[in-house]
């Protein structure tokens, strides 16, 4: 759940959206719309997580997997994601040195930018949050799978608490950006901070994925 907190698409879209909303409407209305965006990301996380959990529960009941092959595959996916996040999650190179451009294709990024600046009501905003979370599905799906497997090992009474905790932790960066805006920071300051921490994000994401891969592999061998 901490790994998902470090993913950057939703915070990037949120920062642009909130900045634009502040420029177009009153602070109160912008704040209201920002909460709708956060709600959208929470709904997306909850929906994807619960669907994954349901599928995993079904397969476990049928004894289809959770064997060595499953753990090896998951381990491989995590290590591949670890390598990908270090080299390709942020677009690197001289041209992108002072930016936080992500792995998304140019058209997808332009599409997000367009929707972040042209949304008109709460429904649009909720959908934008949903889409921003969906864009990182490749990175979050393996996390949902492994978390679901972990939940199955817990006592049933903790399942609900774990799922709630997962959703809350995933949206902490959005609440942090909202608090920064509310306390008088502007987009320039927030963006400069994100650029400054870009290397940290890459290292944390990469190491976390690889560590998760190694742990999954070890648990499979043992």
């Amino acid at each position, binding site marked *: 759940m901490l790994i998902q907190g470090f993913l950057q698409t939703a915070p*990037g879209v949120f920062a642009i959206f909130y*900045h634009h909303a502040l420029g*177009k409407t009153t602070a109160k209305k912008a704040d209201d719309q920002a909460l709708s965006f956060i709600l959208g990301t929470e709904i997306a996380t909850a929906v994807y997580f619960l669907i994954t959990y349901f599928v995993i529960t079904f397969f476990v009941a049928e004894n289809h997997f959770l064997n060595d092959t499953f753990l090896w595959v998951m381990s491989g996916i995590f290590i591949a994601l670890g390598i990908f996040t270090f080299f390709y999650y942020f677009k690197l190179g001289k041209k992108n040195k002072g930016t936080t451009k992500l792995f998304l294709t140019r058209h997808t990024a332009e599409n997000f*930018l367009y929707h972040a600046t042209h949304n008109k009501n709460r429904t649009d905003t909720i959908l934008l949050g949903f889409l921003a979370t969906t864009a990182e599905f490749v990175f979050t799906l393996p996390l949902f799978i492994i978390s679901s497997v972990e939940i199955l090992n817990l006592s049933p009474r903790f399942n609900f608490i774990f799922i709630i905790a997962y959703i809350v932790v995933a949206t902490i960066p959005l609440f942090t950006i909202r608090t920064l805006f509310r306390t008088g920071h502007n*987009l320039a300051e927030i963006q400069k901070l*994100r650029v400054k921490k870009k290397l940290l994000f890459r290292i944390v994401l990469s190491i976390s994925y690889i560590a998760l891969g190694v742990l999954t592999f070890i648990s499979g061998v043992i």
Partner: protein
Amino acid sequence: MKDEAKILKIHCKALGIPSGSAEIFIKKSITAAEKSLKNRKIITKNDRVRAITKELKKYNKDLAYVYENYNKII
């Protein structure tokens, strides 16, 4: 020019720059940028952004930064 001025006004409001002074320096920046690009045969969108950013830096660095990096956040 109208679109650029509109976007810049939105940025100014979000950054907390008073609208009166913002309107004046947005107009000045765009006019000066257009003047500097006058002799070029081909002008790309990036050329315009660079020229306007250069002028905006004289008045407000935060606004110049946001305008320059607006498309590079996601």
